[in-house]
């Protein structure tokens, strides 16, 4: 553990550290990290947010997807230092505090959209942003939405069902808009 007053962040000998300010799940966090620290590692190791999973670590699997200023990105393909000043939402930040599961999380539970759960944080963040952009995807659009994320358990069918169910839940929860 770091001494009192120290910012979180490990210091390998001789490596220059950079102070990085991030708004993570609505909370301003400051870390001191070397330039080479991947955002995924910064979230997990420096900030203790282990909900973001690291699968392939080269941008293929999508497990580490987080929202950067609202848009899904691979946190393993970003240097934390380069995200200075950004607002980041991880899987931990999807549900409003005290309000239970988010609609996408609820849909995954209802539709059995996960088995081992390793890929799930990446799907949840991706679909949360995807439904914000397109609240009523058809089947093709739902497939396209999750096309950049790998799941080795479910065979994707239940994840697709979860996308549609989440859209339904969100529509039901939204106040009736203009016709």
């Amino acid at each position, binding site marked *: 553990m770091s001494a009192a007053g120290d910012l979180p962040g490990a210091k*390998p000998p*001789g*490596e*220059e550290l*950079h102070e990085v300010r991030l708004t993570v799940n609505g909370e301003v966090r400051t870390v001191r990290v*070397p*330039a*080479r620290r*991947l955002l995924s*590692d910064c979230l997990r190791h420096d900030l203790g947010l282990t909900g973001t999973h690291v699968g392939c*670590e*080269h*941008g293929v699997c*999508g497990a580490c*997807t987080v929202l*950067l200023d609202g*848009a*899904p*990105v*691979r946190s*393993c*393909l*970003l*240097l934390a*230092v*380069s995200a*200075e000043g950004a607002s980041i939402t991880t899987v931990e930040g999807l549900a409003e505090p005290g309000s239970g599961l988010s609609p996408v999380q609820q849909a995954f539970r209802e539709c059995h959209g996960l088995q081992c759960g390793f890929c799930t944080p990446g799907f949840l963040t*991706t679909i949360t942003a*995807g439904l914000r952009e397109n609240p009523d995807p058809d089947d093709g659009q739902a497939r396209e*939405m999750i*096309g*950049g994320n790998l799941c080795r358990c479910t065979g994707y069918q239940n994840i697709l069902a979860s996308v549609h169910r989440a859209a339904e839940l969100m529509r039901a929860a939204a106040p009736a808009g203009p016709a």
Partner: protein
Amino acid sequence: MKPRPVGYTRPESVAEALVALATVDAEAKVLAGGQSLVPLMSMRLASPDVLVDINRLTELSYVRVADGQVCVGALARHTDVLTSKAAAAAQPLLGKALRFVAHPAIRNRGTTVGSIVHADPAGEMPAVLALLSGEVRVASAAGERSIPAGEFFLGPLESDVQPGELALEVRFPVRPAAAGTALAGTGFAEISRRRGDYAVCGVAVLAWLGTDGSVGGARAAYLSVGPAPVVVDLTDAVAGHGADAASFPAAARLARARLAPGADMHATVAYRRHLAGVLTERALAEAVADAREKAAA
């Protein structure tokens, strides 16, 4: 799977970035979207000494149409180009190709200029730039220069951007010179093993109509079949053949004869050459239909 220690500087302006690139006495790499550079660093296939992070240079995050060119600044993300209505109206090939560039999460961060400077022979946007005979504007502390696409791609992951230089902008012609004043259309086709993955083979096609409405000519730029984008003039195979599909197999034969693809774990030479022909027909059909639609409008 972690990058080695690396120096880091984050200039606030192009002028500052050029000073940084000029004064670094070690191997410096420009970091824009990092969607190719960061994984290469993680795999230690790239080991720059210093990163010059240009993510603060918002003056370069534009996509605009000016002087008959779609101008894309070095900090414009693929998504910015893909969602630009002005760019889509001026040069629809950009959108047709960008949909094949990885996945939305990658396109949200990766930059179009970055993917061109990265010069991956499997990249879609280098092929588009080569097909349209666009250019790359680069700057260094010594001044600016423009590099035509034909001289820009030197080999796999090697472009003509020199140490100390920063690519500022890529320009895609709205009306490529190859088509002259003729009505032209574009098409793009690609085969990858998984959606969003690197192309096993891909092609961008520009086709234009003669004054009598028949196909006047066509050219194609291929990805994943050589060390850099390979441009093939298909005019001999298609010119004067009307606008029906009759000449498309001849174009495919011409492409297969001209290309010398390599083999890798995903495709043999013969399979890749076969794909090049099939994809030539598809993209050519799309381009000719596109041109005829414009003619009918």
